[in-house]
């Protein structure tokens, strides 16, 4: 067994959650790496969609932006952004949406908008982008974020996209028939909403991680499921595929750098 970093474990755990039949709406960063590792390992026929309009894309290097040329070059086809949001996302054709965020609460609501009051923010974050409708229109949502006290907070200053709202059947009460966040994959553990309360609960801990390490990195008193398993360590294949695509990506973006103005 090779050594691996917590981020590698997070990406690989996220990749494993995807299957061959998934139609996946991919965000930039960790989700993009996870989806492409899945495609290059156990889910070769997975359909990857980026909100720039590229459908069925198979990038050889990970994009820096959501609309890198590589995504279009390797896509089955590319549609306009209005069509993407209307026919494909709102149309209910996406099985799995991947989100990340600056902050998350215990019901998997996300904030990527502001820290502080909206009108006089302490920190102005980029905003929601596709997240509010990804969160409601995809069959289910996976979230990847490193587990930190700054990120996993007791109360969000702003709900950019809804997870399970106030918990319980809040989604149903708002007329939603999609599942919402079913899994949060961090660098230390995997969380899933409790079936009843919908509060995020640790269901799997990554190899070598202790309970107090997890509790100490979370902004609320985190709960553990009755049975908590150990996340299987990355396999040799998974690590090689991930490191290869990361190396190709670094080389590609680095090369591009040299000729830049």
């Amino acid at each position, binding site marked *: 067994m090779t050594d691996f970093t917590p981020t590698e474990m997070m990406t690989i755990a996220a990749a494993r959650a995807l299957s061959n039949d998934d139609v996946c709406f991919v965000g*930039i*960063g960790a989700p993009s790496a996870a989806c492409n590792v899945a495609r290059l390992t156990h889910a070769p026929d997975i359909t990857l969609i980026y*909100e*720039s*309009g590229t459908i069925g894309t198979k990038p050889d290097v990970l*994009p*820096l*932006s*959501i*609309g*890198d*040329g590589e*995504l*279009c070059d390797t896509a089955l086809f*590319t*549609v*306009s*952004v*209005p069509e*993407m*949001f*209307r026919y494909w*996302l*709102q149309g209910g054709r996406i099985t799995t949406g991947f989100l990340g965020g600056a902050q998350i609460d215990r019901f998997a*609501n996300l904030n990527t*908008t502001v820290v502080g009051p*909206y009108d006089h*923010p*302490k*920190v*102005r*974050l*980029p*905003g*929601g*982008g*596709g*997240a*509010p*409708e990804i*969160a*409601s*229109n995809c069959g289910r949502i996976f979230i990847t974020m490193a587990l930190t006290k700054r990120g996993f907070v007791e109360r969000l200053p*702003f*709900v*950019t*996209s*809804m997870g399970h709202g106030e918990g319980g059947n*809040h989604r149903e009460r*708002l*007329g*939603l028939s999609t599942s919402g966040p079913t899994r949060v994959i961090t660098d230390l553990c995997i969380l899933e909403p409790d079936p009843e309360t919908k509060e995020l609960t640790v269901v799997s801990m990554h190899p070598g991680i202790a309970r107090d390490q997890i509790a100490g990195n979370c902004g609320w008193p985190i709960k553990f499921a009755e049975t908590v398993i150990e996340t299987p360590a990355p396999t040799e294949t998974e690590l090689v595929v991930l490191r290869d695509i990361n190396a190709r990506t670094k080389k590609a*973006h680095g*090369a*591009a*750098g*040299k*000729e*830049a*103005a």
Partner: protein
Amino acid sequence: MARIVSLAEAVEENVRDGDTVAMEGFTHLIPYAAGHEMIRQGRTDLFLVRMTPDILYDQLIGVGAARGMKFSWGGNPGVGSLHRFRDAVENQWPRPIEIEEHSHAAMANAYEAGAANLPFAAFRGYIGADLPKVNLNIGSVTCPFTGEVLAAVPAIRPDVTIIHAQRADRKGNVLIEGIVGVQKEAVLAARRSIVTVEEIVDELDPPSPNSVVLPGWAVTAVAHVPGGAFPSYAHGYYPRSNAFYIRWDEIARDRETFTAWIRENVLAAKPEDFARHAAKTAAKVA
């Protein structure tokens, strides 16, 4: 019928102080050269519209050209914050900026409604999200058949839309290929439009009968600006300069380095300077 003119002329004739200006391009084909020309011509009090403001609007906001902005994601893609945008929102530098914030779905639908000459767009959106609490331009509409309540936003109808495209023919018919974003909708939603292009050719020659084309009679002005999307890219011409996007983080972080960069690379530059980027990058690709 589109007039084929210089970029300076296109901006002089079609962009006015106080205008609502949409500059679109979803990562791809972002009209940087046109933005720089607007800065050189000193346009001000603009209300900027764009789904993903990115570096282009960071520059316009940083020089104080914008009174407001309507947007759905204001970051440097894959890199981090837009420092000039943050400085304007957090510290009102160089002037306060009014923001109207939406989701991507809302913006895309609002452009689509504008192109279709509808006053509003209805969509399944914003459920459980806080934006409707802080944005009065998010409303709702009830289906007259099922009673379902949907989110609604006003159509976007810019005074002028500016985009970059691969090529035009001599009648001003424009071909857009690859990641086409909301450019067609943004042009059709606007009163006036400017399209900068990599090439002007005798025959447009779209690869498919269903290629994305804007006919010359639906466009106001076409300007030949090779490389005009740099550091964004033009599919089939030159790739995105991811490295410049990364470098922008340093340039824009500080007011002085930003101002110096604008002075040197925008105020002291010309639209023709973009051709250099295009040629250089293209050479690397070949």
